């Protein structure tokens, strides 16, 4: 629910209550004033009534005069002062009981005491309530329409900076070069929000840049000590006096250094892709490149005794040659590495989609974790767990889609959207 709707609800509830209260109050006040006015009128009329009655030869028992029903009855002596009462009379025309205001008093007329009662039709409460209700509702309706129009105006104009900022935050991308700018607003709250957002995004961007720079620098700086260690191991190996124990130690050292080197290279590659260091694209014929790759990998395919089947159709892709090479390399070598001895390896390139199917043990980690960095499906400690993370990064860069399916003992990796217009 929008904030405006929420506040409007409260406003509406409050105004409904206010209308009801003022309506009832108005009703009571009107009722009182009208009654009081009527009593005054009747009291004033009584003077003229007395004069009128004195001029008559006989005092009539009941008659209609001054818009009132007047009855007289002889009494022993004058005892009752002006007394007001509410009564009802049956109205023969409308066939219903109607409320009347009655004033009763005693008076000496021509020497004789009479009790005179003057009854006047009251304004009906129901009518009064109805009129008040209708008027209130009309006001309330106008109020609602007003609120609605006002809200529309407010959300269009006053809240505009807020929606603008929201759209900016939604579209925020850490990797984008140009900074996100939240323009200042005339509204203090939004201005504060935009200032805070500006500070936040700038800090995020700077931290991210620093982190990327750090990874890049760290990877580079690691190369030299790695080279020193590697070369020292190479030299130590050449000493003819080494015994088997030494060689075993050196072997472990050499293997560990090799892994460290590969890890560093993979991290460096990832950072470079993220840092946009592979700019520029070329039109590359993917089928040729794949044939080439498969040729290069043939020794490894043979060594594992894999059954290779490929169906490659001409497909042109625009990408950086190095990245496309890495992409194919990682996908193919993954399919070879995680294959079963004598398993299947099927490479299909058709209608802008590359599918690589391979036999393999059931996956040990959830499919969605497959592309995460350092995700390892097997306890095979030779694997870096960065190959597919690199693949994903490259696909993201060129808006290729990448998906993985697994069924039984075979896995299928599909790269789609290989056509690109630009």
């Amino acid at each position, binding site marked *: 629910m929008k904030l405006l709707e929420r506040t409007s609800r409260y406003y509406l509830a409050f105004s409904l209550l206010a209308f009801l209260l003022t309506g009832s109050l108005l009703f009571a006040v009107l009722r009182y004033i009208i009654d009081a006015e009527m009593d005054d009128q009747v009291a004033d009329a009584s003077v003229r009534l007395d004069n009128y009655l004195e001029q008559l030869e006989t005092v009539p028992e009941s008659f209609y005069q001054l818009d009132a029903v007047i009855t007289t009855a002889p009494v022993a002596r004058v005892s009752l002062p002006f007394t007001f009462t509410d009564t009802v009379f049956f109205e023969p025309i409308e066939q219903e009981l109607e409320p009347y205001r009655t004033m009763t008093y005693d008076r000496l007329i021509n020497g004789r005491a009479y009790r005179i009662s003057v009854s006047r039709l009251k304004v009906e409460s129901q009518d009064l309530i109805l009129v008040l209700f209708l008027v209130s509702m009309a006001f309330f309706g106008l109020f609602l329409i007003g609120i609605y129009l006002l809200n529309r105006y407010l959300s269009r104009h006053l809240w505009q900076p807020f929606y603008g900022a929201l759209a900016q935050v939604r579209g925020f991308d850490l990797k984008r070069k140009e900074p996100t700018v939240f323009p200042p607003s005339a509204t203090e709250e939004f201005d504060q929000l935009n200032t805070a957002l500006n500070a936040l995004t700038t800090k995020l961007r700077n931290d991210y840049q620093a982190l990327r720079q750090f990874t890049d620098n760290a990877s580079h700086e690691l190369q030299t000590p790695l080279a*020193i260690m590697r070369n020292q191991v190479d030299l130590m*190996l050449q000493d003819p006096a080494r015994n088997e124990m030494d060689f075993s130690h050196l072997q472990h050292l050499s293997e560990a250094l090799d892994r460290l080197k590969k890890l560093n290279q993979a991290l460096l590659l990832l950072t470079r892709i993220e840092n946009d260091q592979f700019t520029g694209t070329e039109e590359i014929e993917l089928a040729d490149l794949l044939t080439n790759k498969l040729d290069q990998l043939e020794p490894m395919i043979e060594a*594992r005794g894999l059954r290779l089947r490929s169906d490659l159709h001409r497909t042109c892709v625009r990408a950086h040659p190095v990245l496309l090479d890495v992409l194919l390399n990682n996908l193919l070598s993954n399919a070879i590495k995680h294959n079963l001895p004598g398993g299947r390896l099927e490479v299909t390139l058709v209608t802008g989609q590359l599918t690589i199917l391979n036999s393999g043990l059931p996956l040990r980690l959830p499919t969605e974790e497959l592309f995460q960095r350092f995700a390892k499906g097997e306890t*095979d400690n030779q694997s870096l767990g960065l190959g597919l993370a690199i693949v994903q990064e490259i696909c993201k860069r060129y808006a290729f889609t990448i998906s993985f399916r697994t069924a039984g003992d075979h896995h299928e990796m599909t790269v789609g959207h290989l056509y690109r217009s630009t």
Partner: protein
Amino acid sequence: MKILIIEDEPSLAASMKSYLEVEGNRCELAATFDTAWEKTGLYDYDCILVDLTLPGGNGLDLIRKLQEEQRGAGIIIVSARDSLDDRIRGLELGSDDYLPKPFHLAELNARIKALVRRKQFHGNRHIDYRELHLQPDERSLSVNDQAVRLTRSEYDLLLYFLANQNRVLTKESVAEHLSGDQADLLDSIDFIYSHVKNLRKKLTGAGAEDYIQSVYGLGYKWGPA
């Protein structure tokens, strides 16, 4: 062979020198841009190894100068800055090869030998080792004057062994030599094993001695048994 090692990291320079001198090469070291500039102006070298990030200057500038002054020398860039741009610029400026750090000394040795062989215009571009005779340009091999056909990988492997005779070569170094960047992601040990097995079979099958010795689980060594 006279080799100049331009490298500011002393232990790296020392290990390169130590490995290369075993083969009878004469190595000189230059740790700064200025020393390198001076030395290359004074002496002639067969091969110059250049680090790109040097105290006092950029290695690329040095290569531009070497291209003019040391026409006969082979130039190999040895750099931790393994960026494509550097590689391309270095080759454009006239370097002959590019070896990213960290590298194996055996790989460096093999690259130097291949480069020097390419640079020698007057014959002597073949390799003889006892009963083996190789013409690397034609990728041909004969054993006792009988031609032997090798696959590309097997031939590369043989060249690598011959460049590093009597040296212990780790499997990692062999794998890296054979598959270059692809070794990064491959469990390469079993395919090396099969290549070595095939090469050994072809050589002994053609009447050569078995020169490939396994060194425990660690790697291989080429030399007479």
